[in-house]
């Protein structure tokens, strides 16, 4: 009887997970493996893929080497690594601004002496931009920034009636300024995610036992000391989580730069367009976004992007493992 039940159990549990693994193997795992095969081929999307081994990877690593040694100025273009730099130039200011802002908000929201009111309201309002369709947001920002009739320029120049012809008759066209436009993308990213980070950090701070602060208070520690000696170290796993998920998302940023590039009303060209080309945009423009598709190269670039993301994820997992081991030792 007992044996029979156990046998039944083992058989049933496995059957229940079959649907998941059917979809997983067919629509997730197989495409990922096939993409790796494609990265070893030359494929234009029409004829059969032509196997060429690790050619694309060797090229990408050579380009990296050339970029580091400075030889790229001579003969090898190294476009992928240029887009790598572009992506980081968008992501880095974003994570700095986002974390500082979220940290500040979380600390003042959880401060027991300040007792700020309306925290739930603010939390919800700050979270809202995160849920809005990024494509729509991109279009909204393009129209708001429009150099002729955009709201932002209108505010900068004052009402047209007050300044006939405008203070700057030509308008401030941010779409011709590569660095400024990259920074606008960073700002949008920050604006979209600081609310989420705030919520996560708040729950992290609430998870820290009150007794730590009481003990620190008895020892005469100031608020600032308590923050740097207790709050910040104990928040490290939470902050790592935010940073790594932000890397995973940020390295793949696509929607906003893509919409900026293609719907700036044709204003975005040359250097500005180049500066906005992130890794995902590069992969897209070499494959689906081109009539002369290089699916093989684009697949290899996808794997390179994944490698960049994976290194960060591994660091995150190592930190988490170290943390849980440390906790076991405490108990």
């Amino acid at each position: 009887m007992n044996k029979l039940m156990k046998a039944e159990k083992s058989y049933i549990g496995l059957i229940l997970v079959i649907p998941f693994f059917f979809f997983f193997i067919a629509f997730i795992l197989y495409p990922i493996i096939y993409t790796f095969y494609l990265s070893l081929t030359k494929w234009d999307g029409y004829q059969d893929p032509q196997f060429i081994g690790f050619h694309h990877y060797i090229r990408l690593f050579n380009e990296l080497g050339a970029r580091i040694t400075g030889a790229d100025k001579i003969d090898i273009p190294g476009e992928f690594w240029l887009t790598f730099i572009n992506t980081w130039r968008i992501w880095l200011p974003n994570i700095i601004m986002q974390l500082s802002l979220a940290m500040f908000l979380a600390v003042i929201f959880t401060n027991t002496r300040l007792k700020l009111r309306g925290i739930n309201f603010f939390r919800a309002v700050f979270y809202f931009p995160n849920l809005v369709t990024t494509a729509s947001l991109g279009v909204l920002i393009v129209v708001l920034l429009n150099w002729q009739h955009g709201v932002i320029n209108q505010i900068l120049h004052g009402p047209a009636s007050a300044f006939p012809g405008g203070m700057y008759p030509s308008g401030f066209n941010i779409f011709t300024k590569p660095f400024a436009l990259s920074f606008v993308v960073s700002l949008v990213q920050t604006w979209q995610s600081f609310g989420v980070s705030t919520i996560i950090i708040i729950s992290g701070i609430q998870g820290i036992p009150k007794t730590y602060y009481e003990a620190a208070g008895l020892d005469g520690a100031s608020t600032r000391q308590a923050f740097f000696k207790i709050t910040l170290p104990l928040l490290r796993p939470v902050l790592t989580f935010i940073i790594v998920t932000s890397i995973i998302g940020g390295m793949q940023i696509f929607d906003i730069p893509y919409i900026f590039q293609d719907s700036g009303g044709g204003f975005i060209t040359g250097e500005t367009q180049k500066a906005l080309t992130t890794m995902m945009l590069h992969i897209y423009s070499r494959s689906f976004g081109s009539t002369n598709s290089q699916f093989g190269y684009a697949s290899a670039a996808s794997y390179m992007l994944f490698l960049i993301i994976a290194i960060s994820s591994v660091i995150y997992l190592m930190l988490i493992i170290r943390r849980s081991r440390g906790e076991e030792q405490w108990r």
Partner: protein
Amino acid sequence: MAISMAKLRLQLTRNLLYFVLVILTIACVIPFYMMVINGTRSTQEINTGVTLIPGSNVISNLEVILTITSHINFFMGFLNSAIVAVSATALSCYIGALTAFSFAFYEFPLKKILFAIILASIMIPPQLGIFGYFDLMLHLNLLDTLWSLILPAGAPAFIVFFLCQYTKSVLPRYIIEAARIDGARVMTIFHRIALPIMSPGIAIMAILGFIFTWNSYFFPLIMLTSPENYTLPLMMFHLNSALFARDSGAIYLAIGLSILPILVMFAFFQKFLIAGVTTGSLKE
């Protein structure tokens, strides 16, 4: 005296912080407010200046959205997005709950390895397999169909992970055992006992999943080629190209309409959404 000084300083700090918070609130809300206002104004009005007072051109802006783009039907995009988001959410939640139920209450061979695979796949960005997936859809004749956007939802790794933890905490094992001894079949236990008890957790995942699918842009951009299959974000992009610098009023209104469902969900399910953020990040 010293105490009142301290109190005064606290009050000053508090007011300063409220000021900062209000500024941030305005920064979060004003783009959407401008969108609503400009969506009700004519393009001429928009071009002449900024105002915070609504205009009276909603109907004509709406007409522009409906007529000027004869090859793109904006409301078809609405329908397509709804079909994809609802089906993908339903599929992922059902399979996610079933898989989580199995991992939480049954012992079976390979269980640990299979769960490790699920955990590992959370870390893999879905874009990695895009070229293989494109080729697969090509061979299955599913390119340019809404199916191509729904099928990957059948393997919702994160939902399985989340619901597995959740189920263990809300559903005591002895209830399952009792039902089993009473002779209830597995699917009956799942549908009658597990699903109802798991439903708050499923709701969090469903709301987040719906919004995620509704907003997704990259996958539809690659999979869909005919305008009649476009989802809303794609429609927005093409509408903007078609109307840019010609009819900003209509663009603002279209943006507003495209995020209306998100706004409604946010208004109703705010608590669930915020709970989803915190539970997703704190793995205990």
